[in-house]
């Protein structure tokens, strides 16, 4: 049966039609410094899942301190050095700042962005457009390997007595400019992460534009590819701005220039004890540059997940995606508008209130394409025949959580309402709904959906559903109450809320959030176990286990370097599910139409693309 042919055999049978022969490669070039986009995707998956655990642990320590300030951390407390854990193993305020900074920076820059772009992008782009590899495979390899020193620098303060960076993931100067060596290394590390990100972005654009299979026009590309393509454009345009901000911040921090330092700042550098900067700079400049990247980065983090969810929904509802072109234009709209809304992070920063009004309007306009996407997903479900696989449940979780995250965004989009809720847990709740509730569930969906193609083994659906359901429950128990304490005025990033009388009534809720977060953290071990167990003992995957239309399912399970064992020609769009002229409820892009089908199409023209 061709479906269970392994990659190995496939290569023996059809290896002659492909330029690459992986047998001639050494172990190092094949599995470590590999040019193969699928190996790089797996490397991204491994590292991001590892950092997901590291960032999650930081989050749980942060939560422990907020809920039970001053109480020793269970199990881990005794391992903490004196400077971090004090004499009792309770998290010290300085260590709290480090953990909070690291949680944010790791989750955003080392988990979500590399997951949705590095992992999903690398795996899907060549396979879904029907080509053998990226346009620039060596650059692709560097874009992964640069992440390793970058991550080591980002967290480098771990080995220093002075500790890690403490200025938050946003690293606003002057605080970040007067911090010590951990912060300096963090800045350099983030610069390198950005560099790796740009390498990936350029590669994705080049690949999508140049390497599509015969017949794969732009408007026959699956939503995942469209989303990754627009994301790559955002990365390429936005990340250099972040890089420039980080270079200036590095100079301010390390060489005591004054890009962001005003005249006569009364502060002392923790790096070398100097208290002299020439002055004349403006701290707000950093915020403008930072958010000029970091707002599009919000879409960098979610657009690929949106694409994945669209594809997964179409597959498991056995329906064409509703409004394919509208969805693409919505993504383009988000991509463009994403660059003119950054000021909504700065309503209370001291930026001119007049500018605030402008950003309110642009921010409100960007809500529209998001709403369009929601309605189109609902339209996709309508009239479907929905199969509740783990991947589909993740996609549904994505849509439902994105609705809540989108709605809570309306509050802070209004500058007037933002005055009170700015920098409170309401904001924290909002972006966790979008980043975890939406982006990460999209990533889970991608893992459940493409794992059979990635490793040639099926994941356990029962465990998968269990993981999704419990993640969904614990996620909501963790982050929904954050809205409430946010409305109560609970500030972000405070190590001990009991200092404030007006926050004391929320301490019970804080404890509840922490226990739920611990539950959420431990639930992720189900996913990890599912992956590790089934890598070894999983059922062999058939070629097209989900009866899907897109090109990656034309490749053998666990394809070798070169991907396809047949020549790929694309005959139709990716969403011909339940086509009225066909008996089968799917019609893969690569299957040539039969004589009868051509005749039937003439007699009864469908509105297919």
């Amino acid at each position, binding site marked *: 049966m061709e479906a269970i042919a392994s990659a190995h055999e496939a290569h023996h049978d059809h290896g002659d039609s492909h330029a690459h022969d992986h047998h001639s490669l050494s172990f190092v070039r094949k599995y470590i410094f590999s040019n193969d986009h699928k190996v790089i995707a797996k490397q991204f998956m491994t590292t991001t899942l590892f950092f997901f655990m590291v960032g999650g642990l930081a989050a749980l320590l942060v939560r422990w301190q907020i809920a039970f300030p001053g109480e020793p951390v269970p199990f881990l407390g005794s391992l903490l050095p004196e400077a971090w854990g004090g004499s009792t193993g309770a998290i010290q*305020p300085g260590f709290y700042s480090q953990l909070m900074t690291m949680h944010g920076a790791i989750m955003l820059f080392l988990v979500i962005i590399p997951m949705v772009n590095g992992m999903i992008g690398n795996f899907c782009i060549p396979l879904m457009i029907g080509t053998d590899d990226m346009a620039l495979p060596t650059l692709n390899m560097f874009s992964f390997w640069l992440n390793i020193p970058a991550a080591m620098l980002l967290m480098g303060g771990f080995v220093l007595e002075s500790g890690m960076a403490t200025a938050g993931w946003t690293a606003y100067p002057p605080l970040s400019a007067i911090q010590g060596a951990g912060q300096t290394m963090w800045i350099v590390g983030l610069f390198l992460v950005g560099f790796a990100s740009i390498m990936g972005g350029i590669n994705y654009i080049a690949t999508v534009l140049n390497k599509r299979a015969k017949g794969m026009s732009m408007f026959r590309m699956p939503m995942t590819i469209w989303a990754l393509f627009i994301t790559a454009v955002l990365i390429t345009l936005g990340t250099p701005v972040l890089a420039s901000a980080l270079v200036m911040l590095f100079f301010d921090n390390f060489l005591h220039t004054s890009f962001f330092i005003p005249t006569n700042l009364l502060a002392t550098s923790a790096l070398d004890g100097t208290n002299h900067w020439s002055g004349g700079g403006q701290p707000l400049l950093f915020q403008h540059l930072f958010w000029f990247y970091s707002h599009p980065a919000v879409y960098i983090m979610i657009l690929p997940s949106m694409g994945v969810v669209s594809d997964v929904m179409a597959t498991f509802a056995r329906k064409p995606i509703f409004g394919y072109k509208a969805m693409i234009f919505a993504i383009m709209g988000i991509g463009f508008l994403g660059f003119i809304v950054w000021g909504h992070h700065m309503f209370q920063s001291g930026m001119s209130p007049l500018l605030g009004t402008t950003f309110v309007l642009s921010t409100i306009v960007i809500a529209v394409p998001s709403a369009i996407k929601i309605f189109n997903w609902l339209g996709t479900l309508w009239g479907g025949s929905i199969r509740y696989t783990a991947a589909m449940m993740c996609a549904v979780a994505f849509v439902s959580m994105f609705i809540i995250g989108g709605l809570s965004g309306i509050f802070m989009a209004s500058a007037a309402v933002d005055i009170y809720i700015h920098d409170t847990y309401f904001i924290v709740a909002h972006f966790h709904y979008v980043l975890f509730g939406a982006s990460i569930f999209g990533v889970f969906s991608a893992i459940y959906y493409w794992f059979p193609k990635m490793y040639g083994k099926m994941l356990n659906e029962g465990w998968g559903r269990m993981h999704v359901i419990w993640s969904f429950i614990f996620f909501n128990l963790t982050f929904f109450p954050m809205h409430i304490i946010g409305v109560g005025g609970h500030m972000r990033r405070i190590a001990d809320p009991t*200092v404030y009388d007006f926050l004391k009534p929320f301490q019970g809720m804080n404890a509840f959030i922490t226990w739920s977060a611990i539950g959420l953290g431990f639930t992720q071990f189900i996913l990890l176990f599912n992956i590790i167990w089934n890598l070894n003992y999983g059922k062999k995957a058939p070629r097209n286990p989900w009866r899907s239309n897109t090109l990656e399912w034309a490749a053998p399970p666990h394809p070798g370097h070169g991907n396809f064992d047949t020549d790929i020609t694309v005959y139709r769009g990716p969403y011909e599910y339940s086509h009225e002229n066909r008996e089968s409820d799917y019609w893969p892009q690569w299957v040539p139409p039969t004589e009868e089908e051509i005749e039937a199409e003439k007699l009864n023209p469908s*509105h297919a693309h």
Partner: protein
Amino acid sequence: MFDWFKYFDFPAWFPENVSTFGAELDGMFILIWYICVAIFILTYALLIYFLIKYREKPGVRAIGYHGNNMLEFTWTILPTFLFAGLGIYTDSAWEKTKNVSHIPKPDVTIDVMGQQFNWVYRYPGADGILGRRAPEFKTNDNIFGVDPKDEHGKDDFIIETEMHLPINKNILVNLSAKDVLHSFFLPNFRVKQDALPGSWMKVWFNGTKAGKYEIACAELCGASHYNMRGLLYMHSLDDYNKWYDEQTKAKSEQLAQALGTTAPTADTTATPAVTAGGTTEHGK
């Protein structure tokens, strides 16, 4: 029985509002809240209905339907008008609270400086006028950067952590920071403004109820950020003037001691700091 329902009633969780514009801002939150609840119920009802109705059933095939441009158009236009309307509607409150040209004539003007890790307040003293300040005069002994040559600055008095203000008066705060970013957050007054080193922001509010309120820092400013708590005592006008006179008297005695003479007490007690009619003895 429906006790748990309160967790889904966000507006009930606000701390008490004691400022003149707070009710308007809260009202906007509540308006958006109701709109969101309506959208939530609509979309979730559809979502759940579709998920149940269109689950996989043997013999039932999905509809190969690609979309409808009229629907796309409708659900593009409707949210656009709804959201744009919201944005325009809430803009007036934004202008009123934050736009410098909309600040009402202040009855009390003070300087507030955020520093690691407390709030420092500078009052204008007996003459009712804050001394001139400039960045070049900023030192650790003179964190506000007051011009030592300016006579108006001589009687200014500085207090830390605890702030005192009168109710029913327009308060203007000149806000800055000494070292890093801070954010001046008065939860009960619905006031929040980042304090930027090197710049002076104007923040205004008008408190309606006497009492003790908390001041928080809402922008990460270092390890003890969580502990940067201030207190704001809102007094009736009489109580405030009494407190103010004590402070000015203490300051003039301190000045006099520094000069080696006795304080001319008559000066400071003669004029109340703020008059009942709301005239602006020391509104700059």
